[in-house]
């Protein structure tokens, strides 16, 4: 895997967060305490050398919630995550690949998701159910497991909690996106404690979400 800077050089999206009782801060998914992230180039894309494998890890079990497409033809990682969330209220990691959507790949696709989650769980020293997955890319094509599986054990070594680490993750989940999309904000609770929320997303086409 590679974290070469040139694999992660795309412009950032403009700040489009509405104004309110919060302060915008830097750091994306790493802005909140207790999280590390990374993005690497693992050779999963059909072409180009842009980052294509991202990982967000919580230092300790994190309370989890998810919303998922209601498309009947949903992808294997969607099915996998929904299965995990039936059993778990906390997880440790979310791994996202670009290149192949792992959709319309049948039983083989689901088994590939399970294998990826198991490999990451082993690399992080957690249980397989501590891992959630996301995929994006071409539909109906098997993931490049020959590149994917060897890359996974190398991911933890590149984890970090800096803005740059979060940015690499944000770029590694993009497909046809022309910009990376990440944001974070800080809000003070009535009790006086300060809470930070950060995030990243991707999307440019095939966009009409209807999640539940």
């Amino acid at each position: 895997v590679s974290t070469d800077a040139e694999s992660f050089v795309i412009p950032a999206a403009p700040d489009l967060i509405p104004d309110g009782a919060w302060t915008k801060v830097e750091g994306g998914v790493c802005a909140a305490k207790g999280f590390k992230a990374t993005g690497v180039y693992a050779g999963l894309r059909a072409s180009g050398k842009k980052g294509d494998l991202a990982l967000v890890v919580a230092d300790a079990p994190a309370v989890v919630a998810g919303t998922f497409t209601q498309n009947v033809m949903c992808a294997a990682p969607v099915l996998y995550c929904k299965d995990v969330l039936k059993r778990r209220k906390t997880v440790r990691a979310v791994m996202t690949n670009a290149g192949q959507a792992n959709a319309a790949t049948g039983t083989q696709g689901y088994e590939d998701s399970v294998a990826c989650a198991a490999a990451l769980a082993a690399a992080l020293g957690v249980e397989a159910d501590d891992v959630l997955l996301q995929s994006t890319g071409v539909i109906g094509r098997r993931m490049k497991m020959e590149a994917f599986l060897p890359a996974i054990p190398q991911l933890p070594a590149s984890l970090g909690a800096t803005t740059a680490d979060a940015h690499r993750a944000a770029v590694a989940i993009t497909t046809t996106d022309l910009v990376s999309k990440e944001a974070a904000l800080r809000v003070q609770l009535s009790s006086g404690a300060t809470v930070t929320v950060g995030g990243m997303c991707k999307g440019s086409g095939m966009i009409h979400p209807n999640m539940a």
Partner: protein
Amino acid sequence: TMLGVVTCDAAVSPEVWTGIVKRASVASFNSITVDGDTSTNDCVIGLASGAAGNAPITDPASKDAQLLDAAVTALMQGLAKSIAWDGEGATCLLEIEVTGAASDADARVIARSVAGSSLAKSAFFGHDPNWGRIAAAAGYSGIIFDQAELGVRLGSMTLMKDGQPLAFDKAAANKYLKDTCAVHGTVQVFVTVGKGPGKGMAWGCDLSYDYVKINAEYTT
């Protein structure tokens, strides 16, 4: 496909966190559209570490829960809008605000109908202040309203009021669209459908030649 990962360091119960992520997803990612195609992979995952050290938020009606709800919604709206802004081939972000509906959910349906209209989107790309296409898209949304109460405003210019088109300055409206698209800015459209309490927003983008070019050349 849209994917999202949201991290938060609040201490919050799974039940409260699930409600927050669900409501925020509806008011953000479920309120954008680029091309009307729902992906096989759309997914938002929210993680809360509890590392902020606050007293755990367990009551969804508490002030802290509402503050966190608003913050997560704002963050997700910012992220979702960036997807619409970066819609394939887009030259502008469309922000549609609907008021006067029977409910917020109704207002969001109308707003996304306008944001998703291929004809309205094409008009915006052509810098055409085409109130008729906006009115039509509101009308076929599936939400019932009195057409005599429809109003349409583009930026600061009122194009329709009480169901009637107005004699607006078309050159100024054209310039508003042209100038906004020139800087990949945000075109604002305000639609009124009655006197109900419901209000909602949706976001999209214009439809350009490049959308077809990109998707004719890129396999999904």
